[in-house]
């Protein structure tokens, strides 16, 4: 998995609450059996007009100034609904490596870490402030430093964020989780021998 240490990039706003994974990747694209190639279907129903091709000018993220964004700014309960990992796949294929939100849905949050995406939880006040700043200045950038758990604005102002230490380690090192767990194969075998349900 790709490592994540420091990221500096353009921030794109998605001003909505409860953005569900059906919006992130609509069901018709779940028929694919591949893990990549989802960049064009991200936010499909919002992003394009009814023809499914022409960019919807009313979808804020489509505007020229947010092209090339790597950081997504949104509100609460992002990624709720279906467990589809197609959602983080599409976000990543589009270019996002970091998501700033007031809160995340549980399964989506876990899925991010398996795909080298850093989800950061910030207070509603800070998120509100960032929305204001992103809209006020073209090419608004932030620097995300996972090692030091800090977000730096272009004016030098810093915001600290919290993250579980193990999740942090995984992203920094880009660990293959299965490989890590298989180091304990013997313990798994022992567990199976004394399983309380006698499976």
């Amino acid at each position, binding site marked *: 998995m790709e490592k994540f240490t420091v990221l500096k990039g353009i921030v794109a706003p998605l001003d909505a609450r*409860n953005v*569900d994974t*059906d919006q992130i990747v609509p069901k018709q694209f779940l028929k694919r059996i591949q893990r990549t190639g989802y960049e064009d279907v991200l936010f499909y129903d919002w992003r394009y007009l009814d023809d499914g091709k022409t960019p919807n000018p009313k979808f804020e993220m489509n505007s020229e100034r947010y092209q090339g964004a790597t950081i997504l700014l949104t509100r609460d309960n992002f990624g709720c*609904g279906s467990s589809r990992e197609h959602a*983080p796949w599409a976000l990543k294929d589009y270019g996002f490596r970091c998501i700033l939100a007031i809160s995340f849905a549980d399964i989506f949050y876990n*899925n991010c870490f398996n795909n080298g995406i850093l989800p950061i939880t910030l207070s509603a006040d800070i998120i509100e402030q960032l929305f204001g700043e992103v809209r006020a200045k073209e090419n608004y950038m932030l620097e995300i430093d996972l090692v030091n758990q800090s977000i730096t604005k272009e004016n030098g102002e810093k915001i600290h964020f919290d993250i579980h230490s193990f999740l942090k380690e995984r992203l920094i090192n880009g660990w293959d989780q299965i490989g890590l767990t298989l180091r304990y194969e013997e313990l798994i075998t022992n567990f199976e021998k004394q399983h309380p349900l006698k499976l």
Partner: protein
Amino acid sequence: MPKNIYEKIWEAHLVYVPEDQDPIIYIDRHYVHEVTSPQAFEGLRLAGRKVRRPDLTFATMDHNIPTTNRDKPIADPMSALQVETLKSNCKEFGIQCFDMHDPRNGIVHVVGPELGLTQPGMTIVCGDSHTSTHGAFGSLAFGIGTSEVEHVLATQTLLQRKSKTMQIHIEGELPIGVTAKDLIMHIIGKIGTDGGTGYVIEYTGDVVKKLSMEARMTLCNMTIEAGARAGLISPDEVTVKYLLGRAYIPKHIPEEELIQLWLSWASDPNCSYDKTININAVEVEPQVTWGTSPEMVSPISGRVPVLNEIQDTNRRNAVEKALKYMGLEEGIPIESIEVDKIFIGSCTNGRIEDLRDAARVVKGYKVSKKIKQAIIVPGSMLVKEQAEQEGLHTIFLEAGFEWREPGCSMCLAMNEDRLNPGERCASTSNRNFEGRQGKGGRTHLVNPAMAAGCAIMGHFIDIRKWKFND
């Protein structure tokens, strides 16, 4: 110290707690379906890994399969490929697959319980958020992503952080005509779609004890819509009675011992939780969602919200956006909303009791001329068979409903069953997200009897006032 059910299951399944990472827990059942598994199997192949416990892994096809003309090949080539891929992956890795033509086929969360695969005290995962359904049996069950599916296939374990526990204590009595579906929708309306985030919920109280297994499954099913990791109910006599005699109940343990083992997982008296919420069931009415999130819900006697009565700006904006999408005027009575289509089915309400509830309403009536389509999609082949034995299908067919083959169908509209832009549906499923039932489609979530009544009248009605013909 007394323990709650989550603590018991958690402790019994800890394989190892490494110093530098999350605890590793053992997984007792892994359910697999066609949509979230192909990339996981591909990952195994690329890394040259095997499935560690194919005997604890069970697959079914449900999301993508047609509900008509099952004898013909699947028309959509991509759906066909996905279904074929699951079949060949199961063959390659030695996994039991209840494929489209198997008499045990159906929605994964209907099949697991009815075959007795789901049992108290188990840890159960599936690449599907509604895995929470299985918590009704006192198992710790939750949805995972595809990378985690691959992890479980390869290691039969998962990395987990321990959740906090929330008790939702439901006292009183559910009024007649009010179901577990209304109860959970009422709860979501109260605590919000992120009210359960970070928690595992246990439902307790008199009301829960009296619920059938089907109703308990409905309750746990939609727990994910409140954002919780899992929802569960301590096993009791109702659980035991439902399970005994089912196909996959272990034969190598004497029955008495098995029952004791199952019941031993129940929460101890005087155990504690991180948080408790009390619900008075008497207050619950039949519910209808009016918006694009399950928390946007109203009792049937209520009205669509009025924007300038909402103080919070972010919330008002969200409601405004939802009403626009839903094509609803502010302040109108819920009962005045007319619909185009009816969908009765899904892992929330596609079980035999749900079909009985709906049939009881429909008996002696005809589907309204205003309704373009009304479909009944049983949750599984076994549910379908049972319903046909009871003659429920005749009641539906005579009234003008379509009687379909099992599957997820219009719950997520991956197959041909879907809403067209602007169409409005009374649906017994669990999600009313934008486009969930088809691009531009408008979903109102309700219980099965309410959906049936809506089919007859053409608009929402209070099922408590229905004139039954039985």
